[in-house]
């Protein structure tokens, strides 16, 4: 009896791969099951080869699966590409022109023909979903309910067509039902299915972010497009900028005016934004940037995943200024991190960079729903109730903690003067040497308090002699790998970072002291390892690196870890 099932739906772009996956995900969600759904696609709109990898379980999942129980091939090419991934007891469901082989390992089904019989060939996706549902041993009624919801806006006729199509697929697969051991029945759960991109948008909105200037770039576009459905109810504006430089400048301009704003981009766009990042740093204007990483440099692999912008994000822009860098590990954590990023960026008047990656941004994961909107949010602006020639408002007052009281322009008598040139306390250009020293020190003076805001890495088996160490979206993979290694009698723990910068050197140094460290990262050099060596006195580390643009799988980490720990 299986309670952890992985299926892959593969075919060309434009064949509805993701639609089938989403329908099945939703059926699982309605039954209280957990899903982990990953898309793998090329940088093209039609053709090529894409797949959706869907893992389902009755327990919370933290990572995708890679050994297939069910392989759904929308074209024959897909079978050739993925047949090696099938488990020995797995089944391949293959789209065919005519009905063909039908047994426990291979099922040839004419999706288009059945869709036509149901009334319209465009419903082939629903035929496929119906067939998979039958193989999973689930009742058709669950899928029918999902289809009714999904197509409600398109009218009863379309709903009926799709339900009929699903029924065709379901009936064609009769007798192939696997013993999955899932309780297939509609069940209320306290779970939520989110992608990292949507979670980032929700978190920003919950933080009262009202302005989203951006320039389209995979895989960050989903962050901003996820705002659109809420723009009817909420006072928000999404504006497509002429380039990323403009996008970040618009966000800074809005923030100057006291409105929370953010932009989202990927590595190449983030490169263009670095001058804006420096402007925010110098002018001490709160700013939130989401960098949804993809492998590079330059254009790299536009639709694939990587974690190679860590050191860049920490150092981006010339000279020095304090900033926050976060890398949440799951969609729900992305929501929380966005709220914190806005809060902390404003509290300390610094930029906050939230690192996602294509894997986290696009994967749709079931988690326990802990999302909340805060009853109140703390804002960090001083009342603008004074200011005169004799006693002007000092935007950059030299205060001990470095956080000079910030005011909103045109909200009172105090003139708010901001410049990217080095400036005196009033905000005027200053080339005075003592002033330069004082201002550099003022900006840096924020760091001790910022470091106190940083949350320690997530630890598993803290007493184990060996630690897998990672950051951001690899967490779930690392956790599952640690579990599996433990089950095989290996004493392995983990430290996974979400808060990356500024770094609490002392605490982190203590946590990692005397451990054999294995960096598990999606870049070519172990960037977090290098950072820890620089900041926390780590003198050596092993690596499990993956930089092929595809996500980690727990299997891979387990196998590599075993080679490293003998």
């Amino acid at each position, binding site marked *: 009896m299986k309670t952890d099932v992985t299926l892959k739906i593969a075919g060309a772009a434009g064949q509805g791969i993701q639609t089938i996956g989403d329908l099945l995900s939703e059926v699982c969600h309605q039954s209280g099951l957990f899903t982990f759904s990953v898309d793998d696609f090329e940088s093209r709109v039609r053709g090529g080869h894409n797949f959706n990898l869907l893992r389902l379980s009755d327990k919370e999942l933290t990572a995708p699966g890679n050994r297939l129980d069910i392989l759904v091939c929308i074209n024959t090419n897909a079978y050739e590409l993925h047949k090696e991934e099938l488990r020995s007891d797995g089944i391949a469901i293959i789209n065919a022109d005519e009905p063909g082989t039908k047994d426990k390992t291979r099922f040839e089904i004419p999706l288009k023909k059945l869709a036509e019989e149901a009334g319209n060939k465009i419903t082939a996706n629903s035929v496929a979903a119906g067939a998979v549902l039958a193989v999973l041993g689930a009742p058709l009624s669950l899928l029918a309910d999902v289809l009714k919801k999904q197509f409600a806006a398109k009218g009863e006729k379309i709903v009926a067509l799709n339900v009929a199509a699903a029924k065709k697929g379901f009936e064609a697969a009769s007798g192939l039902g696997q013993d999955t051991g899932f309780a297939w029945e509609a069940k209320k759960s306290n779970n*939520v299915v989110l992608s990292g991109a949507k979670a980032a948008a*929700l978190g920003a*909105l*919950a933080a*009262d972010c*009202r*302005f989203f*200037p951006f320039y389209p770039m995979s895989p960050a576009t989903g962050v901003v497009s996820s705002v659109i459905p*809420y*723009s009817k*109810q*909420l*006072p*928000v*504006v999404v504006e497509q*900028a*002429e*380039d990323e*430089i*403009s*996008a970040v*400048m*618009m*966000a*800074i*301009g*809005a*923030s*100057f*005016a*006291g*409105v929370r*704003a953010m932009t989202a981009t990927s590595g190449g766009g983030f490169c263009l934004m670095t*001058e*804006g990042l420096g*402007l925010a740093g110098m*002018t001490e204007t709160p700013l939130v940037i989401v960098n949804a990483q993809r492998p590079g440099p330059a254009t790299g692999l536009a639709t694939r995943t990587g974690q190679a912008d860590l050191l860049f994000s920490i150092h981006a822009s010339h000279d020095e200024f304090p900033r926050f860098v976060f890398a949440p590990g799951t969609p729900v954590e992305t929501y929380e991190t966005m709220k914190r990023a806005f809060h902390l960026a404003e509290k300390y008047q610094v930029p906050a960079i939230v690192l996602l990656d294509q894997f986290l941004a696009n994967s749709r994961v079931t988690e326990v*729903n802990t*999302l*909340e*909107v*805060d*009853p*109140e*949010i703390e804002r960090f602006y001083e009342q603008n109730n004074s*200011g005169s*020639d004799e006693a002007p408002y000092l935007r950059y007052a030299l205060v001990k903690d470095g956080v000079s009281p910030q005011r*909103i*322009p*045109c909200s*009172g*008598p105090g*003139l*708010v*003067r*901001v*410049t*990217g040139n080095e400036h005196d306390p009033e*905000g005027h*250009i200053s080339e005075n040497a003592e002033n330069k020293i004082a201002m550099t020190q003022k900006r840096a003076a924020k760091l001790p308090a910022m470091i106190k805001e940083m949350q320690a890495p997530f630890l598993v088996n803290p007493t184990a002699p060996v630690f897998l160490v990672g950051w951001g979206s690899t967490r779930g993979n690392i956790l599952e790998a640690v579990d599996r290694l433990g089950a095989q009698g290996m004493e392995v723990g983990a430290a996974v970072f979400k808060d990356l910068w500024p770094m609490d050197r002392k605490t982190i140094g203590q946590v990692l002291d005397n451990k054999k460290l294995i960096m598990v990262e999606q870049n070519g050099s172990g960037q977090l390892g290098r950072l820890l060596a620089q900041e926390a006195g780590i003198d050596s580390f092993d690596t499990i690196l993956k930089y092929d643009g595809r996500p980690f799988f727990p299997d891979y980490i387990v196998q590599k870890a075993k080679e490293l720990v003998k």
Partner: protein
Amino acid sequence: MITPKDFDCKYENKWCPGCGDFQILSAMKSAFAQQQIPPEKLTLISGIGQAGKTPHFLKCNMFHGLHGRALPLATGTKIANNDLTVVVNCGDGDCYGEGGNHFLAAIRRNIDITLLVHNNQIYGLTKGQTSPTSSLGMTTKLQNTGTPSSQFSALGIALAAGAGFVARGLSGEPGHLTELIVKAMDYKGFSLVDILQPCVSFNKINTLSWYQERAYKLEDTDHDPQDLGKAFKLAQEWEQSLPLGVLYEALGTPFHERVPNLKASALAAHNYDSKLLADTLLQNL
């Protein structure tokens, strides 16, 4: 009663003696006084260069940003709070060179701000290189065989991009310039005033007298500012004659009236509403 003096500021001016910027600054103060806008209700946003320093030299709220980037900064500020009066100061290199893409985008958005371009046809702060508005062949220490690029027609390009208010002023005509700035600020949408000015330190060709010998005022002619074709023709005049005044003015819909969520009230005017957010974001997830 607000007077130009109300904008005087103690901060030391850093321009070269004799610079046209002084007259532009003075015309700005006069225009703001005519608009009866107090310094604390005025927001100036600028780029980098001698023109970019302008907001430091008068009383106002200001964001002195980066080279070429004043317009997107101003756009963000204005989208966040449409109730603000936003005026932008840029130089020719700043706005038409480094910021060229933003110039086109700001016009197309028709964001309700006023752009004053201090156009001296030279890079002053970096000590005398040619700018996009320098004449073809102009020589400098760097362009010692003459600039190989032809002159950027800011007014023509603004018209072609669909700008609804396109004017040219001259620093040596501060009264006339004041009137242009007042009109530009009155205009609902994106307004451009390209201001010819001498650079006494580096541009030895386009001096104040060079401009004055060629300049004439459109108000003294029968020009109809609603005539786009004529405006295009005027924008081409250069070597022999230089039209000053409003070349083109036509009503359009400003950005904040094009965007549903900006029509009723400014983004900044809303309060945090936890119930609305919870109902909108967390129901039906």
